[in-house]
């Protein structure tokens, strides 16, 4: 036993914003080990410049954004290729955004509709200004050369100018 025991001091300190009440900077960050699990073929498809969706083996409902089981009838789905050309179903240009995307503003988001596909696909639109986008405008998929294995590996551009 040591009655003079001491814990080591540090020079860590704290970043202080205010003292009444005391407001300090509290840092937090984390890296996840994230599996795309059953959705993995979609991301592998992007690397091969393919858009892979899901077709229900029970009712034939076709999803532009993949899912392993059908939302309509509950049956398992198969992978199917989605056309590279579609139309703008709706759009917005974001001048602000979440912190992670602020540096990319302004950017345009679209939901794309495809012939023969029952659901839509969320993507960025490049090559058209905020006032140039219209609903129904034909768009074409392009793929990043250097994959990041994120859904932004595919984006869309105007199909006809």
């Amino acid at each position, binding site marked *: 036993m040591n009655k003079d025991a001491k814990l080591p001091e540090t020079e860590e300190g704290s970043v202080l914003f205010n003292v009444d009440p005391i407001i300090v900077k509290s840092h937090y960050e984390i890296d996840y080990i994230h599996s795309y699990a059953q*959705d993995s073929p979609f991301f592998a498809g992007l690397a091969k410049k393919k858009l892979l969706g899901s077709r229900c083996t029970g009712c034939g409902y076709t999803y532009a*954004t993949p899912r392993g089981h059908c939302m309509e009838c509950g049956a398992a789905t198969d992978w199917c290729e989605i056309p590279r050309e579609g139309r703008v179903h*709706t759009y917005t240009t974001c001048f602000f955004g979440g912190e992670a*995307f602020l540096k990319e503003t302004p950017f345009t988001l679209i939901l794309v509709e495809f012939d023969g596909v029952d659901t*839509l696909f*969320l993507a960025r639109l490049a090559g058209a200004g905020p006032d140039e986008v219209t*609903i129904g405008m034909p768009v074409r998929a392009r793929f990043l050369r250097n994959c990041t294995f994120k*859904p932004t590996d595919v984006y869309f551009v105007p199909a006809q100018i």
Partner: protein
Amino acid sequence: MRPVYIISGGITKFAKSHPDKDFRLMVREAFDYAMADVPGLTREAIDGSVCSYFSDHFTRQLKAGAMVQDYLGLCPKPSRRIEGGGATGGLCFQSAWEAVASGRMDVCLAMGFETMSRVNTWKGNEFIALASDTNFDYPVGGFYTGYYAMMVRRHMYEFGTTVEQMAKVAVKNHRNALHNPYAQSPAELTVDDVRDSPMVATPLTIRDCCQMSDGAAVAILASGEAVARLGVRPVRISGVGCGTDAMRMADRPHGRVILLPHETEADYAALDYPGVHSFRGGRMAAKLAYAMAGITDPGRELDFVELHDAYTSSEIQTYEDLGLCRYGEGGSYVDAGAPFLPEIDYGLRFAGDGRWRRVPVNPSGGLLACGHPVGATGLMQAVFAFWQLQETIGKHLGDAALQIPDARRGLIHSHAGTGTYITVSILEKI
């Protein structure tokens, strides 16, 4: 199931930041207010609680509900945390209803809070966007204002809704809030003020969007036996409903409208539904709540509505989901002045064509003007609706301008994640 009543409520002032109070103290303030309003009610008579807060990222404290429970001195009574995005507060209210309706509790405290000031606005937007699919939606540019902007762009395309009609909603809710001391951002705005403010995501300007807030609210629910014992002025909860939709907007179907009793198939022969223009979950929640409350024509049978106007656009879309007007008529409903309070000067001219009975919507100022501390918001709506039906708005707000005379029946509506969880509850004077 047995009848359930709301017997008291309390709200902290919603503000951009409350650095002098943590979440426990904010809830404590709302709780003290509610308890003081019912002198016969003691803490011992409360059988348990449900606690709502949306985001562990904002709170940065897991199991925060347990800390509120102990701070209020309610241990070792039962409690649980309720979470469901923007609808967290509405879900909490309905969970308290379930606790009492089932006979599990005689008196249940519903308490909610959010502390959003702990990060900057854009980090906060990032946190909120994590309530979209983090594989497929968030990485593309996750931003809720962007999602709602795409939804209303389609509403404009389908139905001819205009940005001016949306701006009038902002004018209404901010002006109502001038009489509400709990509100975060009361303001006298014009349509031009709304349109000339900074663009966030086309076509939504910053005045089309609610703000981030710190705040708390509580509602105390009780059985008929407890009401008789306590000698209070209760309001009955006559209907509850909840609906859902696919997390990814892209996955929403293009099918047929879920009809309310006053509608027919022919009303919507050519409409693909819900697509991304409407909230199917809101329609389902309304249908279930109306069935329980015996409402067959909501536009004629409701006296006011407190709905989840996180955006001016979603207020217009929600009029239609709730059946206050038909799908496609939400913009005209605003132009007609139907959702405005009759005694307040908004500086607007209304079409006044008498197509719709006046049903004030968001007399409190709604989320747009009161603020949106997510876990508290749905409970704030319950408290304002309770005070309306109790006819105590003047007492609690220190200003009776927002009191709707002879209000018999009100609706509260809480909404999450581009329509993924939505609750509707009906409150009635007894």
